[in-house]
């Protein structure tokens, strides 16, 4: 084989490919170099300019024209919205962007940890000098206050949004008789919660099997979260001083009870979820098609109506309020406005440690100015006209710009105009989410609680009480932090490291107290040289970090603020207070590993057995079966999320299901990643796709089984099946054990698919699909709760250690090792 002439050629071509790759990479470096120039590179995160964002693009471009020495680079980076990890890592890593376009309700969170720069000094300096300087009086008070924390301004609000109630007039007319007989007026919208329920009851239609044919009102369809209903019921989720979480107040409970009643009308949240999973976007929006009769939605939804359903006959109004509020009874006696809504929006901020602060401030002053906002509207309109699309008045946080926009772009369509008017009327009376450093946690917890209560996983009271406790813990952590002594981590870490090194040296020295000869000493030196790369790596990247991790587990620290010793508090939190999450995450991981790994082994082994038996075309089949494993992990997840999309009109899996398993056995197609029950099987399926490639190791193992054993078995009259069970499998058992052990350890640490899935809207709530490493990751790099994360890491370590131990015990019983002669 070594003398085959083709090998020389092959080796050369390997070389050629590598040279080509190297050259092309160099070429890339050259080719891209030209975009670098002497200008300041102002990096803005949270903004991407798509083909529909001409207005914004022109605003940025105008800034560059005014400041020829600055280049604006925009990036989405998954920041701005709900994924804080990237931004936090960048700030902590001292490489933050210069400007961040951030959701306002999370601002206090960042501000409290010193991650954003206060803007007051800059405002005070420029006020009166620069007419573009943003000041509080130009903005709606609620929006300005939302971007402030403890009296300091951390962001300049840009857009604002609020939510109104829209209803399908045509449907109301169609159901006029039924509505009238229920005592309801088909020509107007419900105004109170009890009216809303009554309308929904009449408008909801069900199929004989109980599934929905039409929904009257789905509380979470459109854009209305628990926060919306809490706002309508004047539920305060935090005490005024921000020190106590009141998520379980009676007003909040009422709001959630109301949501639950809405879902009860629809036959439960599960039923509504199943119905919603068939909804389409864009032109086939469920509200346009009449699948949903009423909804609460934001101002951006009007654009969709104008674009895809300009002739839609719909009415609009304020979101229905609790009956007492409508009649100004009880605690609503003195309420200033009967109608209210919930507003949110984004703000431009400067992260701590930004490299070009002045340029960033100049940029923010420009984009938030009245002129820029007007320019944005004009340019956007110009683009929309060429596309045959309408421009809507833009709700922004700035009063003057909003008023002007209303004048400039009032739609002619009366239904749309009415809706726009309601949006503008409600904006001044709308409320924001509470401003707190725990804003993000509060938001996550309240939605988890709502989700649990609505899906019957807990009672309303219990769900809210749990959530309230969880938020309270975070509040206390900061409010009471003076209880814990400030920690200097360096001595402890240094002591630990020294201990590790000394211990290692002592161990080696003790074991080999006997002297080495001269030759031996020389060889030993060589030995240490050879293993040095690993020893260095071990000390710096494994042992050192483990010591650090141990130390951190007893502290509360987030890098940006001084650390504090907290003793066993972190372990207590992870294992006792957050028991439910911990158990859930490990259950998920064990489920995925426990079913996925054996299935994977069986798949790989079956492919190997077949490949071992086939006479012709083995090479081709080998390639085909290995291909899935070659596809990069992230691409695999992206592909499978597409294949497993619940809508059978798009997802290959469910399309196949709907012509086979579905009709045969009367099982509705699964929701895969969007349903709780099927999310884990979906992940297992993804893993299984690549598991066919495991054959390669099995094949090697099969070739290693001595032929004499088979011959002996044949002489004994064993049939193929018997040969497999009594010769092949025992011979392969060490390999089975090895693959099972490493596969299991790997599968428990599953992370990539969960992370990718969690960052795509429409997948099951990430807390239900959570796995230990994901949990660790979000705590470590999303919140930089380093103490908590370290404690969790040690618990993961212990669990894996235990699992491995059990596996070794099992191995002793079942694994057959050849005895070396």
């Amino acid at each position, binding site marked *: 084989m070594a003398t085959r002439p083709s090998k020389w050629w092959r080796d050369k071509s390997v070389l050629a*490919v590598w040279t080509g*790759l*190297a050259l092309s*990479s160099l070429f890339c470096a050259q*080719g*891209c170099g030209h975009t670098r120039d002497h200008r300041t590179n102002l990096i803005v995160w949270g903004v*991407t*300019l798509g*083909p529909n*964002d001409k207005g914004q693009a*022109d605003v940025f471009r105008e800034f560059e024209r005014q400041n020829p020495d600055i280049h604006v680079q925009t990036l*989405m980076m998954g920041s701005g919205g709900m994924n804080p990890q990237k931004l936090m*890592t960048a700030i902590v*890593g*001292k*490489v933050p962007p210069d400007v961040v376009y951030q959701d306002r309700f999370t601002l206090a969170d960042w501000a409290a940890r010193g991650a954003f720069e206060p803007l007051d000094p800059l405002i005070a300096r420029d006020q009166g000098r620069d007419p573009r300087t943003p000041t509080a009086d130009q903005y709606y008070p609620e929006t300005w206050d939302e971007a402030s924390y403890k009296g300091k301004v951390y962001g300049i609000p840009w857009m604002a949004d609020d939510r109104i109630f829209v209803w399908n007039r045509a449907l109301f007319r169609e159901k006029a008789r039924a509505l009238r007989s229920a005592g309801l007026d088909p020509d107007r919208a419900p105004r109170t919660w009890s009216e809303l329920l009554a309308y929904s009851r009449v408008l909801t239609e069900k199929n004989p099997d109980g599934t929905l044919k039409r929904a009257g009102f789905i509380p979470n369809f459109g854009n209305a979260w628990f926060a919306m209903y809490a706002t309508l019921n004047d539920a305060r989720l935090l005490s005024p001083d921000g020190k106590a979480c009141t998520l379980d107040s009676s007003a909040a409970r009422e709001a959630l009870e109301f949501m639950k009643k809405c879902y009860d009308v629809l036959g439960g949240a599960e039923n509504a979820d199943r119905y919603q999973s068939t909804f389409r*976007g864009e032109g086939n929006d469920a509200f346009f098609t009449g699948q949903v009769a009423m909804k609460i939605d934001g101002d951006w939804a009007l654009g969709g109506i104008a674009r895809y359903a*300009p002739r839609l006959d719909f009415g609009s109004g304020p979101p229905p309020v609790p009956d007492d509020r409508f009649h100004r009874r009880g605690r609503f006696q003195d309420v200033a406005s009967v109608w209210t809504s919930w507003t949110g929006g984004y703000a431009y901020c400067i992260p701590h440690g930004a490299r070009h602060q002045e340029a960033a401030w100049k940029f923010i002053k420009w984009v938030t100015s009245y002129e820029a906002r007007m320019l944005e509207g004009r*340019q956007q309109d110009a683009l929309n006209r*060429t596309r*045959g*699309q309408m421009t809507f008045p833009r709700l922004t946080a700035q009063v003057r710009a909003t008023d002007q926009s209303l004048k400039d772009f009032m739609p002619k369509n009366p239904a749309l105009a009415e809706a726009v008017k309601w949006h503008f009327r409600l904006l001044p009376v709308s409320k924001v989410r509470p401003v707190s450093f725990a804003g993000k946690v509060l938001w996550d917890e309240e939605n988890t609680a709502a989700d649990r209560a609505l899906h019957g996983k807990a009672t309303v009271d219990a769900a809210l009480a749990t959530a309230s406790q969880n938020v309270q813990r975070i509040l206390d952590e900061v409010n009471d932090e003076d209880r814990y002594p400030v920690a200097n981590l360096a001595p402890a870490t240094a002591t630990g490291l020294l201990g590790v090194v000394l211990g290692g040296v002592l*161990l*080696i020295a003790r*074991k080999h107290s006997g002297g080495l000869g001269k030759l031996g000493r020389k*060889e030993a030196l*060589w030995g240490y040289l*050879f293993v040095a*790369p*690993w*020893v260095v*790596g*071990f000390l710096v*990247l494994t042992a050192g*970090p483990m010591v650090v991790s141990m130390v951190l587990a007893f502290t509360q620290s987030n890098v940006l603020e001084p650390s504090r010793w907290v003793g066993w508090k972190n372990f207590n939190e992870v294992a006792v207070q957050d028991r439910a999450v911990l158990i859930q995450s490990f259950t998920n991981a064990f489920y995925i590993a426990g079913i996925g790994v054996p299935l994977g082994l069986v798949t790989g082994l079956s492919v190997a057995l077949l490949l071992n038996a*086939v006479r012709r*075309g083995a090479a081709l089949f080998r390639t085909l079966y*290995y*291909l899935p494993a070659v*596809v*990069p992990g*992230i*691409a695999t997840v*992206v592909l499978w999320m*597409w*294949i497993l999309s619940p809508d059978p009109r*798009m997802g290959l899996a469910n399309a196949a299901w709907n012509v086979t*398993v579905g009709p*045969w056995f*009367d099982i509705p197609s699964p929701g895969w990643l969007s349903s709780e029950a099927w999310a884990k099987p979906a992940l297992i399926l993804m893993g299984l796709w690549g598991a066919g490639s495991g054959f*390669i*190791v099995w094949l090697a193992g099969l070739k290693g089984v001595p032929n004499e054993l088979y011959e002996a078995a044949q002489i004994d009259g064993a049939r193929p099946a018997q040969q497999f069970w009594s010769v092949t499998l025992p*011979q392969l058992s060490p390999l089975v054990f090895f693959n099972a052990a490493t596969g299991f350890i790997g599968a428990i*640490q599953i992370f990539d698919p969960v992370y*990718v899935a969690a*960052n795509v809207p429409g997948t099951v709530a990430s807390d239900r699909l959570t796995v230990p490493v994901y949990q660790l*990751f979000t705590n470590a*790099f999303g919140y930089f709760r380093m103490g908590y994360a370290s404690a969790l*890491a040690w618990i*993961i370590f212990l669990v894996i250690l235990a699992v491995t131990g059990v596996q070794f015990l099992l191995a002793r019983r079942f694994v057959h090792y050849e005895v070396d002669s």
Partner: protein
Amino acid sequence: MSASLLFLASTLLLWFGVGALAGAVYQVVRIGWERSRWWWIASGAGLIFGSGIPHDLGRPTPKLWLPLVFPVMPFPSWLLLSAALIFLPRLCLGSVTGAWRWRPLLGWAAFIAVCLSWQAHMDPPKLLRGALGIEPAAGAGLFALLVGGTVVVARIAQNRRGIDRVRNAAVTLALVAGSALFCLPLLWLLLTSFKEQSDNTGDHLIWVPMVTQTHAYFDTDRPYVSTVWRGERVWGTLAANTPHPEIDVERPYPLMGWRVPTDPATTRPEQRLGTVVTTTYRGQPVTAFVRRELVGGEREVEVLSPPPLQGRRFTTTQSESQNVRHPGLRWQNYTEALEWLPPETGHGLLYLRNSLWLVLTTVVGTLLSCSFVAYGFSRVRFPGRSALFGLLVATMMLPTAVTMLPRFLVWRWLGAVDTLVPVWLPHFTASAFNVFLLRQFFKTIPVELEDAAKIDGCNPLRTYWQVMLPQIKPALAVIGVWAFMGAWNDFMGPLLYVSSAEKLPVSYAVQLFSSDKGGEFGLMMAFATLSTLPVLAVFLFGQKYFVEGVQLSGLGGK
């Protein structure tokens, strides 16, 4: 209880009957009628009794039905069945031979109890709902196929060679079916990447990609030109009423909305692409192309054919004009996916460069450091070797999660966040698994070789480099290919450490792209395909060495 149990019983009988029928046919062809009598009786009994028992579960019963209960049983039922199959014979055998073995029996009983309690949560009739209603003709066809197939197989399998041939055919068939299943998602990836957005989100799945026909033309009303701006060619409409000629950029997409000055040296007129539609002009069907979309769903079109009307312009609506489409591949998904990437990254070129850099360093680092360390552990004697090696093996069990956060702090302290260094440098410190593997491999190489080198005056470094390293090429090939794939696919590293667009590798770019452009399936799949191509090429190229290497490298156990 009765309906479900009856259904279960009848299904069992039917399966038994069908199986016995196949057996009977096989026996007749192989041996003759005389030996097949019991098979026939069994199959007849099974089929007759099985279909004789009423199996109405409260829904219309098809005329003919295939009892498919078992293949689609829920998971716990499967477990229960298999447990019962193991448990019952053991129980019986044990009582016959008197050799009771309590512990396994108790274990199996416990297992069955768990399965039962699991099943208790399920809806009993649904467990047994497995009948497949089929048309009588189709049923007859299936039946004929079964009998015919058995006959053919039995004819061929008359002798040893025949049996071999049948077995080989079955194996090949299974392999073909399996590989089709495994490659279907890949095929779907490719198909999706070539489809238009409307086909990906249409009302049903589409297997043949279609493309919309376009007509290229020079727009005289709103001149479409291209120019070079900041070193990159941009396309757009010439802006009206400006003192100096300027362009409203339309492409590349990320620059959309910029109005840039034209550069006389590089500016040139460009053709627009208008969608070709069929519509009617004064009652006459015409083919035309869209010049412009207007407000309110109207579009201005220009007639292409029939010739007498060519060049005529008029206004129609979107609903009255149908796009002309024909089967074809939409390659633009690929160019547009790249066009979408930030211009600062050279439209993805930098991603490629970063990934190649990662791959290069990782492969070199892994091969060098692992073989180096493994040589030390296998052939050089020094105090503490076994202790250190034990430590190395122990780190294999250490979850990466434990050191994730502190490692980040270490790199932060070293000022290496937002570079690729933390992603590739650790590969120069040898990974436990590879060292373990290579050490096994080194051990198989005869010591004499090394001794000869030593006598020739080589120091250990030279021995390692010149004598030992060439001996372990197959193992190195495997580790190299794995390192390549690992580096190309690495996601967690870049996710943690890289935040500048210019420093992203491809793997992370795919995730960012998919979260930014979640709805554009064609573009997403095109980008995913592009991210696969380099590894695919390396694998196809190196697979021969790879497969051989795995077999030689002792990965197959021991």
